[in-house]
């Protein structure tokens, strides 16, 4: 066995930066996404308030989504470079051996095998995670942009696809986050802390345990096959324009999808533009007084012939039976009230009634001029019964 302190480079700086970008965008997406999915949970509400409200959370989510998307575009171009130009082995693609590795690892864990499998540069656990990542990338990207552009989506697909996309987007997120916690965190943080994504290398022991096959390969010292510079140039002539076109298309696509749709109006108009709030009803006319018969002045110039009616109408409300002057009966009016004689037969000017009813006097009940004239004549004629 070789030196246990030997270090084996695993990820170069560019790949480590990619990973940091992924951590940032994925975590942001997970946090801002899950608080939207479980929006009415009290933790979510607290976080939403902290982040500045739901609309801000949505904007943050979309910014992180675009970052995540573009990181993916970069990754695909890098893969194209490594696989097409450099003709590297596609070490992330799972094969039958990985299935056996997984089974053997399980048996080994359970004590049914004496030795763990010798695994390649990327073992079954990492390949599984990478595939899940790629699957999630496409699914979340597709459903996410559908939710971002529901009007555009429904021009092409049936409307139901949007709520279906929402369900898929949310549950895929739950799956991804839980898988990260259970699988990724266990493998690189819990069972032991794996520094390779930050420091870039693995120790000899880690290599033995997780990438035995790769270690053997390295120790065999197989040299990397050199690429003929002419072939390299030839491949680059194809790779460079294709990758430029691809990145321009993808960046344009994301810019287009981020700006294409004005899904809804931003301000709701007042709901009642047409119907006025204040529309009074026409008031019901107040019941009018029943018209009184107009008695003939000449024949009615006695108490019973119409003067009683006149007094009843104009004075009877107050001068009833509650004390003082009463106009209810002939004797009452002749008898007078507390202030004296209301009617003195034959002498209108001395009758209190005439003084009371004189123009300009503020007595509440008031005869009209015509009525007053009738009363005056009635008194002059002796105020007959």
């Amino acid at each position, binding site marked *: 066995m070789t030196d246990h302190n030997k270090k084996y480079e695993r990820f170069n700086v560019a790949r480590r930066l990619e990973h940091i970008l992924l951590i940032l965008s994925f975590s942001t997406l997970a946090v801002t996404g899950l608080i*939207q999915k479980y929006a*009415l949970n009290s933790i979510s509400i607290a976080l939403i308030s902290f982040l500045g409200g*739901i609309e801000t959370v949505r904007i943050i989510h979309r910014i992180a989504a675009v970052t995540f998307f573009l990181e993916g575009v970069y990754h695909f171009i890098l893969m194209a470079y490594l696989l097409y130009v450099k003709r590297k082995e596609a070490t992330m693609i799972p094969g039958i051996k990985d299935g056996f590795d997984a089974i053997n690892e399980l048996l080994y864990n*359970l004590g049914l095998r004496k030795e763990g499998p010798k695994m390649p540069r990327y073992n079954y656990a990492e390949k599984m995670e990478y595939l899940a990542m790629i699957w999630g990338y496409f699914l979340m990207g597709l459903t996410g942009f559908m939710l971002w552009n529901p009007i555009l989506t429904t021009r092409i697909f*049936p409307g139901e696809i949007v709520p279906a996309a929402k369900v898929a987007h949310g549950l895929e997120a739950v799956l991804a986050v839980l898988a990260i916690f259970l699988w990724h965190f266990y493998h690189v943080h819990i069972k032991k802390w794996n520094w390779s994504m930050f420091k870039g290398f693995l120790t000899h022991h880690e290599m033995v345990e997780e990438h035995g096959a790769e270690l053997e390969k390295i120790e065999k010292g197989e040299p990397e096959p050199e690429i003929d510079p002419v072939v390299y140039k030839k491949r680059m002539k194809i790779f460079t324009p294709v990758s430029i076109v691809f990145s321009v298309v993808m960046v344009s696509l994301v810019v287009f999808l981020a700006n294409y749709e004005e899904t809804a109006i931003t*301000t709701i108009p007042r709901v009642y533009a047409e119907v006025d709030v204040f529309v009074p009803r026409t008031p019901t006319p107040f019941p009018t007084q029943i018209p009184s018969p107009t008695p003939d002045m000449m024949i009615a110039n006695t108490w019973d012939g119409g003067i009683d009616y006149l007094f009843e109408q104009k004075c009877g409300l107050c001068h009833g039976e509650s004390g003082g002057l009463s106009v209810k009966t002939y004797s009452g009016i002749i008898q007078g009230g507390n202030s004296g004689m209301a009617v003195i037969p034959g002498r209108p000017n001395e009758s209190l009634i005439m003084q009371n009813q004189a123009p300009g006097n503020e007595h509440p009940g008031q005869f009209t001029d015509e009525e007053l004239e009738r009363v005056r004549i009635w008194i002059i004629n002796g105020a007959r019964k």
Partner: protein
Amino acid sequence: MKRINLLNVGRILLLLTAIVLCFTIVDMLNTPDKVVAQSEDDSQPKIDTTSNFYCLSCHAEAYNPVQLPSGENLYIQIELADFADSTHDRNQIGCVQCHKDISGFPHPIKTARTLHEYQLQRDTACIECHEVQANQTKDSIHGFLLSQGEVNAPTCSNCHDPHAQPYMEELTKTEHSEVCANCHNGIFQEYANSVHGEAMINDDNQDVPGCIDCHGVHTMADTSTAEFRNSSVYLCADCHTNASIMDKYGLSTQVLDTYVADFHGTTVTLFEITEPGQTTNKAVCYDCHGIHNILSVNDPNKGLSVKQNMLVACQSCHPDATTNFPDTWLSHYIPDKDKYPIVYYVTLFYQILIPGVLGGMAIFVLSDAYRRLRMKFIKPKPVEVPVEGEEVIKHD
């Protein structure tokens, strides 16, 4: 009364008390006669000029209104039948308890130039007994408008005729709403043609909301505020999640849950909780269903179950929406095999996928943890177990 007590108890003491009481009552009944009789004898009359009897002796038949400087008529006649039925008269409230400035005849000269001014002056009397309601009104949109000098805003007496107001419980929903209709007739006419209004006015249905069921009695809020909009959902939900009402009409009580679960409802609910003063452009109930003109979803002309009508409703906020767009909203349904199957099967797929994937992962993770713990705590058998593996673990 006395006789019943007598029969029930039959005690001599009580009988004596009853007899004494009878005499007292007879005596009391005779008293007014005595007062009148005395006043006739005395030169100075002793009429109680503050009794309702005294006031009504004129005002029961005072058909001619007082004309105010504005030209408006102030009607001063009291309809005796209505007054007798009013809660004020039934509680023996005296005229002068409200009309404090009047203690007899002639009355003091009125200072109010308009009817509105006169009513505002009178309102000061209401607050003495109805403090809670008066203060609620001051905080309401009506009170706010009054404080702004809006002459069309209602005073107490615009809604409650103090001389005729019966107990609130004695009024039907329609009668309540007619009060509002006096000023809000445009809205009332819309309401009268709605599914709620028709049931209330035509069938005297007490399950449907009248004006005050949503707007409150004295607390009616400004409906143009963000607070009102954000909380309006619960106005509808109060009844529409109540199975005892909804079951009668075969209506779903899941309308709130399904709304809140959706994009619009989630947003509005969050706004209501976290920033109630901010207006959201996300739809609330009335944006789609209408406010006062709510119709049954099955209404052939405007019902939302007709897709074209739904599209029109969508387009009021999403002007670019096209034919398929209304289906993005699940119409308050919970997806199942027949209704929205795509959503149902996607959900089902994940209900299987998530536990499947996580369960598989858990088997590997737990078995790995088991091996590590076993190797750490149990002495490995000396046979063939890779020696350096153990060393390295210690080394770590």
